[in-house]
């Protein structure tokens, strides 16, 4: 069968949506249609169209520019948060799987503990202690990602440790660290990439949620969540103020989830076995 590794419909749609936002975020670093924080009070709450493609907000700022710069905030927070989760979670999971003793217990019980706290509560705790900012939002979301990756890594690694090629490596005299790095990690990389994409979309949502309640990026740093929060009392007057950031969040999260699904279809060994 040839279908197994071909890019699926969901992968393509997801990839297009995600690259759209990624390009918008990158472009916003050097250029936006209007000054992101430039206010023009006399042109406030303009409907989409004309000079302002997506309209203006209650301060007369260009919504398109804010969405582009907001994409930058969203994606940056999500990427770094997933990075933190992977950088800490994967080694922990590998170590737990390799040791199987008290270290395993220690790591996994600590993980359970971290999992037991809802992510938002952790985030509120961190921002309450260190003050609200984009950096603290990153840390909060990142911490929530650690147990996710640690669990996934340990589960996948455990099943690999019983395989013959690992036994062969051990017979060849390789230590646990080397086996983990050279044989286990490459074999679970696809799983991690898929999970990373899913966590990435959760990160975008979490950043929007934190900013919505005022715990994320502080003004004037643009953020989709805060755009939504700002529009709250204005929905009746200018619906586009809520629709535009709302659609940005929906489309980016949808795109990332579709991308993740598509990647899993292509990379997951179990699904691959079934299809071939």
């Amino acid at each position: 069968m040839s279908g197994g590794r071909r890019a699926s419909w969901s992968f393509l749609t997801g990839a297009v949506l995600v690259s759209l936002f990624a390009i918008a975020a990158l472009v916003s670093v050097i250029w936006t249609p209007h000054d992101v924080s430039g206010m023009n009070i006399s042109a406030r709450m303009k409907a989409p169209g004309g000079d302002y493609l997506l309209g203006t907000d209650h301060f007369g700022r260009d919504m398109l520019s804010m969405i582009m710069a907001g994409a930058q905030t969203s994606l940056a927070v999500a990427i770094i948060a997933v990075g933190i989760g992977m950088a800490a979670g994967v080694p922990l999971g590998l170590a737990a799987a390799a040791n199987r003793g008290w270290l395993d217990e220690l790591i996994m019980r600590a993980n359970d503990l971290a999992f037991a706290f809802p992510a938002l509560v952790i985030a509120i705790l961190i921002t309450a202690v260190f003050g609200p900012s984009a950096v603290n939002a990153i840390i909060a979301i990142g911490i929530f990602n650690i147990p996710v990756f640690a669990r996934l890594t340990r589960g996948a690694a455990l099943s690999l440790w019983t395989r013959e090629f690992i036994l062969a490596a051990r017979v060849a005299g390789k230590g646990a660290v080397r086996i983990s790095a050279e044989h286990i990690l490459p074999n679970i990389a696809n799983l991690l990439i898929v999970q990373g994409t899913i966590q990435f979309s959760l990160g975008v949502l979490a950043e929007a949620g934190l900013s919505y309640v005022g715990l994320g990026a502080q003004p004037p740093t643009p953020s989709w969540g805060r755009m939504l929060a700002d529009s709250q009392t204005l929905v009746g007057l200018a619906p586009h103020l809520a629709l535009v950031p709302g659609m940005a969040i929906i489309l980016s999260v949808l795109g990332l989830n579709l991308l993740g699904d598509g990647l899993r279809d292509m990379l997951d060994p179990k699904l691959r076995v079934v299809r071939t």
Partner: protein
Amino acid sequence: MTRGFFACSAVTLFFSVPALASKLTIAVQLEPPHLDPTSAAAGAIDDVTYANIFESLTRFAEDGTIVPSLAESWDVSEDGLTYRFNLREGVTFHDGTSMDAEDVKFSLDRARGDDSTNAQKGLFAGIAAVNVIDPRTVEVTLSETDGNFLFNMAWGDAAIVAPESIDTIKTNPVGTGAFKFSEWVQGDRVELVRNEDYWGEPAALEAATFRFISDPTAAFSAMMAGDLDAFAAFPAPENLIQFEADERYKVLIGSTEGETVLSTNNKKPPLDDIRVRQAIAHAINRQEIIDGAQFGYGTPIGTHFAPHNPAYLDLTGNSPHDPEKARALLAEAGHGDGLTLSLKLPPPSYARRGGEIIAAQLREVGIDTEITNLEWAQWLEEVFRSKDYDLSIVAHTEPMDIGIYANPDYYFQYDNPRLQEVMSTLRGTTDPDRRRDLLQQAQTIVSEDYVNGFLFQQPRLTVAKKGVQGLWANAPTQAVDLTGVSWSD
């Protein structure tokens, strides 16, 4: 058959009498921390208690004039030092005890005592002695003439309280007003019932409920859903258009004593340099702030004084929007290559939105701001008490409060002996023309010293159902006076 008819008519009767007509549910934004107006600064306490539960010797009328309340009349001695108050007859507290001269003495002595926790002790500072002449006459002796004395006695902080109920006043306030306290469901509402033994014109409403809704969106929804009959000081000016367009509601726009200022820490470098403060003043575009943060509701001010006051001087000309001049002043002060200041904002939308606009305006002249959004408790702690801030935005709602600039320990940390002298001369002056002259001098001094960025006067925005009559449009003091409120048919 007879019984059937009877039941039927009872039902008709039940529905034909407008069951809600003598009750009113009104919302305000903030819940009071407790219900004793004589021991805390929180304006939310006065919202509920002023005139409704507690009364003072004199009181504010809606237009800001001082009228008799518990004192029916008064005589002032020739030298202006002795006030003899004639108390009304037949005034009782809600617990049935009578209100007499002893209660007045107790209340004033309690407010000015050394261990007083009154938030406005300054109101009572000039009192030398309070003497009971007879149960209906009290004589107050001042240490120096005070042209403001009757005004001071009208404040909610000067409420007359009973010694018997003072221990539980915070949760069970017992006053002399037209409404009695009934129940407080914390986090939700305070319920009042009509005081049937009221000395004056009894309230038209049988019962009133104060609800506390801090979130502007929730306020809008609750009002639109018809859950509320009125909302005093509606927090979202952007929604007023929708209420105005809806025939079920009316919108009252009045004046308040709330001067909204960009509070400035005058002791903290670089803000101790008048050139920096002046630069900030010229960087600010008031009309943009009023349009952007208040949707056009608000009057620009150039000093710390309410525009509806007869002594008001329009000093906005001292600080017109002039970015060029602001940049030049900053360069002259040695900050030509930029400057970063903290801007700490309390929750109201005028502060949060105004803060973003001011940040953008300051950025234009080369001042970067670090915005921190604070809850009220944090704001009081960090900004008001610890004075750990550069800039903040807040509306100062006390009536005639320019005197705060004469207090060097106030959180502006503004210390100017010239102003302090003007204010102390004012305290001893009773001649109206001379007082006006002194008040205008004070306005000019704070304006020309650029103590704060003077932004705009808060409007009083009240939304009510069409049938509600008698609500105050203006807010000469922090109060939601329900004594004159009724339903029209």
